[in-house]
């Protein structure tokens, strides 16, 4: 099966800094590809390359078998890349449905079709298991997990084939983290969307991931599916493998 999105030897340089070097991995529809890495591993740069903010200096991005080049986030979105940033790109003072449709409003004549927008918002959120009682309430009334779901369902509604989730669980409390993982599972169950789940939480990655890619200092440390990478390996890769072993040795002395 052709992967929904595939990266071949992607590199990105900022002056003399090598932000990403030779990154290759793939994501398939109906699967969660967990992209793990510590702070500074190059996760954000990679997201920006995928979502059209930066153009890679080397290598290629292939979507459904066709190489693509994005010069703007708009182009990436049009090609089916839906990015849900950590800050979610939501307007705290605006209503749920206005947030859902911001930038892509539905008009009836000259004016906004508020009823239609509310209805769609309610329906799309319900698909991911969140019942929004009143889509006209401000975002402030939603929990962190529900906001995450709103951003995800918005990306899907507007045609994401590849859903990039940037640390969706990192700023949330325990209960809400699980809520988000449940939402990710709902998206996976649709079978038509490839999910790239960026995280530094190995527990969450293990819970939901089908494939794993480890980034360290701008390079791929390891790539593999569930079988290839066992739990211990996962944890030590996360912590930087050799460095962890070194520290372990140090602490024993």
């Amino acid at each position: 099966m052709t992967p929904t999105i595939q990266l071949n030897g992607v590199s990105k340089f900022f002056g003399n800094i090598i932000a990403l070097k030779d990154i290759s991995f793939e994501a398939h529809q109906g699967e969660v590809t967990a992209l793990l890495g510590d702070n500074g591993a190059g996760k954000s740069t990679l997201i920006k390359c995928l979502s059209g903010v930066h153009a890679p200096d080397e290598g290629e991005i292939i979507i459904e078998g066709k190489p693509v080049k994005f010069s703007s986030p708009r182009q990436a979105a049009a090609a089916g890349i839906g990015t849900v940033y950590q800050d979610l790109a939501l307007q705290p003072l605006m209503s749920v449905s206005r947030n859902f449709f911001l930038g892509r409003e539905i008009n009836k004549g000259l004016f906004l079709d508020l009823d239609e927008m509310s209805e769609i918002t309610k329906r799309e959120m319900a698909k991911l298991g969140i019942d929004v009682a009143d889509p006209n309430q401000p975002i402030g009334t939603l929990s962190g997990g529900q906001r995450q779901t709103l951003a995800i369902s918005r990306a899907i509604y507007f045609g994401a084939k590849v859903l990039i989730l940037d640390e969706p669980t990192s700023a949330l409390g325990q209960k809400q983290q699980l809520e988000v993982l449940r939402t990710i599972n709902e998206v996976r169950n649709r079978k038509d969307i490839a999910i790239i789940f960026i995280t530094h939480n190995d527990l969450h990655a293990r819970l939901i991931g089908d494939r794993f890619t480890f980034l360290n200092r701008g390079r791929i440390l390891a790539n593999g599916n569930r079988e290839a990478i066992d739990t211990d390996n996962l944890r030590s890769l996360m912590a930087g493998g050799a460095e962890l072993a070194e520290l372990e040795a140090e602490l024993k002395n």
Partner: protein
Amino acid sequence: MEDERLRKVSSLQSFVSRPELGSVFGLAIIVVTFMSLTTVSGTFSAMWTNPIGIQAWVELAAFVGILAIGASLLMIAGEFDLSMGANIALAGHSFALLLTFGVPVLPAILITFIELAFLGFIMGTIVVRTGLPSFIVTLGFWFASRGFAVFLSQTLVNQSRLSVKPYLKPPAGGGEDPTLIDNIFAFDKAFGLPFDAEVYYFAILVIITAFMLHRTRFGNWIYASGGDAQAARAVGVPVNRVKISLFMISTCLACLLGVLTVMTSGASDPKAGDFRELHAIAAAVIGGCALMGGYGSVIGAVLGAFIFAIASRGINFVPFIDNNLFRVMLGMMVLGAALLNQFLRNRVLRG
């Protein structure tokens, strides 16, 4: 459709989270206060029933209100225009100069609007391209606009106050003062309407902008640009274009007032619109606009303009209160309103 999860929100409660709330109460308080005060000083009918008395505060409210529309839209988008008052003088001088040079009235109006729209475009572009606070950029133009207006008229015709009466037609049926009776732009004279033209423009503009703000895509974008510009850009809102357009709207509103002032007074005045930008900003703040952007309404700013106008004119009808206390009162109202807004905004954020 009945939904058991829907927390029943009483109409009173949903009203509480609207940005206009403070100004509704403020207006009620101001009206009651001045009705009582004028009753005590025996000037009630002079202010509230006499046509000239009513004209005094309604026309002031319209003047400040037209600017406050621009101020509130900009403030909701997270920006500021301090140059509005100065632009009134600039527009007035430009219009008067064009008349002096023999340009007919309507083309002169059109050219003046184009000039002022261009000025708004320049200010907006500087703000969005450089990232300088609009407070600083428009402060620069606050000095520059008025200075340039007076410089132009002094250099070109050696006068700082330009009378345009020679270029206007005499009123129908004869009379002393020439007016622009043949002109749709100052239609109050032509139709013998009770208020100055700006009152009607004000009413029309309020309806248009209120609908635009709450019921159109552009209005949505205005809120988003001021709420979280980065987030708005991420979903494809053309934040820069929105902000530049609003600066252009702001300068065009100042232009409307500048031209109307020249028409009604028959001369351009280098001090026209002095301090009006601050009055308009005060009206917007009293009306519930948050200085940080993302929150507010045009209707609120309109109510704010009425509060300002009633207090400002009303004080003249109450001889036992010193006029200067008006400013003290206004200052306290702005502070109180800002505090109230902060409280309301936090309520919305917390839900």
